[in-house]
């Protein structure tokens, strides 16, 4: 006996295990060939899912290890101390060399400057460390990225960031504007090192060939002379830094009046955290989105299996009749979808490697490091394994129905599978146009399919709402994005010289035209319960523009303190508890009145009143003035005016509007690009899922559509009617997805950014934009549906009634 099934024939030999396995594979292949369109669309969805999963895993696993590999390659020390050379003396040297916690060190003379440089079309102000490129280093080395050129007079090697994001290339001129000097260099190479490759962690390192170094530093004052000590510690802690501070009475760079009394220290773990933080967030976002797409794929697989069981009931009956077991038939279905997922996933995984150079560039904007990701067999296999494992399970569960099919019932076409129980919305009583009523009838008759579409659209709309929020908060209005890390949003920040009278100065500024407000917000390093913490100091927190306290309130009295939520978790303290704050040898207890968020010092920050700090540091003097201008005032011009009027009293004046845009640039660029990518993938998934469902629906309803045509329905009418039948679940999915997105995005971002010290994200949620995007999804869905239903045109009424 031989039974024809599609293009496969089954004979007695099929029943032998080896033969039947072969036949099962052929049967799976025949099924794929039979429904090429849906196989391709499911395969593309798996492609997207596998691509995203692999990208996410590559970043998650490898970006951190890449940083470690780079630091190993460059033999980066686990801490460095940078101080004014005037502070470094034999006593300090002896202290460091004799400290039991210090394993080995390398000392280097360099210069630190506060300067402005051109960065793209903007001017970037910041601290730079000028190093002699010809001085050999055994630890914390640097290396060239790409080609470098022979040097000439006034050559310079810049951090890789300047090539990637700053708009520079080899042989370009690079100008540094210092307070009293201006240097013009020619770029001869781009480099990377672990500590000074990004301004995110304090200073940017510039490397000058020896002759240039000599020439430039000869024109700098002694106040710029610095001593850089790289050290490997047995146990990385603040002990050595505190020891140096005690010996030298040095201040932090941020709070010192000039470089002469400043000390800056950084350990590698903090640098690593800063360099890989954005990559970690991105990887979590990408993996989460991949999970959503995978869920969509699995819905599609389940739907397809359900359909094919209904369509091929007779064939399944024939197989059972000739002796195939349910297990063997189920296996053929599982193999069919494993094959589809395998092909899609392999292509997706391979494509993911094409995206890594672009991602590397994006991350380099923040980290300043060039991440080169080659093919990673282990991660690729893990991505493939995860997807295939899930597909196998879902396909096996969906195909279980086959075992319940009685062969006789199946051979008769599965009468039990086609029973209409209810005539939804009788036409005799229904109101509205015929097309709409028929569309709703169709939707209700295919309720499982409608629910599936609704769930899928809910998931992708939620993802896209999240992306819209991220895009809006980065590309359109980045106020909340800037505020979320706890930054105060002022227009101008000035740092006063140590001898400037802050009261007099602030009074003068307040009297100026177009100054809306001026207030001091200083920052200092203190120890809280034996942890080094950056503390903000203000007279009156009620005048602060950015509210970073997400629980409780800002301190009102001198014995009150607000600590960052991240830090509070670390020391297991909360509102109402007391902490010991120490500056030098003076300490006092403070009551925690609130928990704040903020990425400063990796979430290790706090806020106290000026009176509160004065108890510990009576000599504290306010120096950092935030100036807020009236709307519409040209900040750049105002900075010049302030500099012109008060130059002698000021250490530095910074255009915060501009700095904010530059500083946020890397984050904004990354997040907005991810947002756009998610939006594009969302639209692609909506189109794919509609193609998949509608095309199979058109094929399955060929006879019905033929009858409609015979009785006088036109093709556009039927296309419209079928497209309309998919709109209600799409509309519902869009509404539910949007609501979840609107209400949950900040909650999700709070969890995702917790490690950054952001405990309560407050991104601007714009229902109008989200609604507009929802409308776009609905319109695109309708237009796509109309396009996909166009094969109805080829359905001939004549062919259907004469078949």
């Amino acid at each position, binding site marked *: 006996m031989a039974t024809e099934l599609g293009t496969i024939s089954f004979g007695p030999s099929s029943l032998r295990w080896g033969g039947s396995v072969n036949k099962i594979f052929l049967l799976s292949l025949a099924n794929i060939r039979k429904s090429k369109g849906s196989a391709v669309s499911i395969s593309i969805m798996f492609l997207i899912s596998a691509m995203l999963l692999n990208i996410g895993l590559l970043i998650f696993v490898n970006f951190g290890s890449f940083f470690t590999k780079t630091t190993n390659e460059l033999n980066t020390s686990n801490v460095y101390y940078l101080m004014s050379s005037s502070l470094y003396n034999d006593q300090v040297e002896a202290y460091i060399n004799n400290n039991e916690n210090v394993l080995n060190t390398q000392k280097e003379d360099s210069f630190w400057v506060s300067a402005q440089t051109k960065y793209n079309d903007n001017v970037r102000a910041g601290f730079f460390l000028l190093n002699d490129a010809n001085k050999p280093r055994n630890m914390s080395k640097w290396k060239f990225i790409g080609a470098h050129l022979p040097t000439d007079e006034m050559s310079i090697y810049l951090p890789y960031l300047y090539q990637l994001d700053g708009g520079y290339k080899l042989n370009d001129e690079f100008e540094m504007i210092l307070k009293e000097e201006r240097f013009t260099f020619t770029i001869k190479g781009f480099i990377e090192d672990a500590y000074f490759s990004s301004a995110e962690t304090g200073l940017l390192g510039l490397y000058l060939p020896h002759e240039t170094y000599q020439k430039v530093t000869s024109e700098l004052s002694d106040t710029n002379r610095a001593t850089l000590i790289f050290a490997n510690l047995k146990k990385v802690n603040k002990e050595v830094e505190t020891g140096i501070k005690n010996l030298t009475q040095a201040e932090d760079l941020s709070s010192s009046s000039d470089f002469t009394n400043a000390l800056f220290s950084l350990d590698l773990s903090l640098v690593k955290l800063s360099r890989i933080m954005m990559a970690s967030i991105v990887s979590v976002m990408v993996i989460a989105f991949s999970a959503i797409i995978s869920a969509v794929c699995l819905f599609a697989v389940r739907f397809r299996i359900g359909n094919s069981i209904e369509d091929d009931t007779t064939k399944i009956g024939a197989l059972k009749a000739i002796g195939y077991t349910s297990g063997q038939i189920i296996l053929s279905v599982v193999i069919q979808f494993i094959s589809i997922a395998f092909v899609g996933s392999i292509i997706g995984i391979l494509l993911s490697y094409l995206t890594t150079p672009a991602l590397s560039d994006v991350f380099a904007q923040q980290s300043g490091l060039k991440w080169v990701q080659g093919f990673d067999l282990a991660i690729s296999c893990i991505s493939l394994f995860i997807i295939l494992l899930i597909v196998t399970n879902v396909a096996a569960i969906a195909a279980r129905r086959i075992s319940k099919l009685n062969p006789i019932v199946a051979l008769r076409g599965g009468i039990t599978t*086609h*029973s*209409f129980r209810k*005539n939804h919305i*009788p*036409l*005799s009583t*229904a*109101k509205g146009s*015929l097309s709409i009523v*028929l569309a709703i*009838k*169709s939707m209700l*008759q295919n309720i499982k399919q409608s629910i599936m579409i609704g769930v899928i659209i809910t998931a992708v709309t939620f993802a896209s709402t999240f992306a819209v929020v991220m895009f809006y908060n980065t590309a359109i209005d980045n106020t909340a994005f800037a505020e979320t890390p706890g930054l105060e949003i002022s227009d101008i920040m000035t740092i006063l010289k140590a001898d400037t009278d802050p009261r007099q100065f602030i009074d003068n500024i307040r009297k100026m035209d177009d100054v809306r407000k001026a207030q001091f917000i200083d920052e200092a390093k203190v120890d809280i319960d034996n942890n080094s913490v950056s503390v903000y100091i203000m007279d009156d927190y009620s005048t602060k523009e950015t509210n970073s306290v997400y629980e409780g309130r800002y301190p009102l009295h001198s014995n009150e303190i607000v600590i960052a939520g991240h830090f509070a978790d670390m020391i297991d303290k909360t509102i109402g508890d007391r902490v010991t704050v120490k500056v030098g040898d003076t300490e006092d207890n403070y009551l925690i009145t609130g928990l704040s968020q903020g990425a400063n010092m990796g979430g290790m920050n706090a806020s106290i009143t000026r009176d509160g700090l004065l108890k510990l540091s009576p000599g504290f003097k306010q120096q950092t003035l935030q100036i807020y201008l009236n709307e519409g005032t040209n900040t750049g011009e105002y900075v010049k005016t302030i500099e012109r009027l008060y130059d002698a009293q000021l250490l530095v004046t910074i255009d915060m509007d501009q700095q904010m845009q530059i500083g946020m640039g890397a984050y904004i660029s990354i997040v907005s690009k991810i947002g756009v990518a998610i939006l594009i993938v969302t639209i692609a998934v909506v189109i794919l899922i509609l193609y998949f469902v509608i095309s199979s629906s058109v094929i399955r309803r060929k*006879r*019905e559509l*033929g*009858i*409609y*045509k*015979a*009785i*006088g*329905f*036109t*093709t*556009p009418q039927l296309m419209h009617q079928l497209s309309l039948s998919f709109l209600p679940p799409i509309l519902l999915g869009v509404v539910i997805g949007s609501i979840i997105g609107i209400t949950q995005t900040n909650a999700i971002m709070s969890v995702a950014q917790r490690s950054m010290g952001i405990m309560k994200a407050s991104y601007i949620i714009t229902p109008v934009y989200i609604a507009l995007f929802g409308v776009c999804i609905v319109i695109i869905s309708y237009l796509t549906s109309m396009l996909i239903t166009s094969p109805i*045109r080829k359905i*001939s*009424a*004549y062919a*259907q*009634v*004469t078949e």
Partner: protein
Amino acid sequence: MSNIVLSTSKLCKTFSSGGIQQHVLKNLDIEIYDGDFTVIMGSSGAGKSTLLYALSGMDKPTLGTIRFLDTELTKLSNDKLAVFRRLNCGFIFQQMFLLDNMSILDNILVSGLLVSKDRKAVSARAKELLTQVGLDESIWRKFPAQLSGGEAQRAAIVRALINEPKIVFADEPTGSLNSTAGNTALDVLTEVNNKGQNIIMVTHDLKSARRGKRILYMRDGVIHGVCELGRYVSGDRARHDKLRSFLLEMGW
């Protein structure tokens, strides 16, 4: 003589398969008169159904023209032909082709509401017609799969008549029915024709053919003979004999 409702001129239909051409209709010139009950007979493969569906605008001829009153159907697009069908034609098929996922009443209304927006009037007419063909209210809410063949065919007839079409095309309407159900269906068609609607019916069945006023006998894609029977009168023996001898003459 009555007006011509439907006419063809040099109508040809050729099917091509695997490079082989099969000429199913060959230069047919036919005229269908208003109020006619035309029966198309012939052996299998003679081109009966092909002619029926070409005349109804459901299929397009290869050559020649089909004219319905002042409209040349062969010049219309598929969508315009669909509109033509909904306004002027009713169809009764051997397999009924009711929509499985709708109740019987909805099957009829879906056709009726395509032409008229007056839901109440269409609904009332559908119920009246259903009652006329012997389908009581207990049937209306049922699905096609829950009906007997005769009941389903009567429902299909009601669907064909709901828009009071100018012409009802019937393709073997009794082919899958038992004798009683077949007679009922034919009675309905006769009554409809008596009220002035045109019927064009393809059949193999002598009993069905007897209902026609004019018999067109096809062979090899051409009209081989025509027999004028006149208005159907039940029990008219002479009419029966005339048809019989015509068919014998045609080699049926």
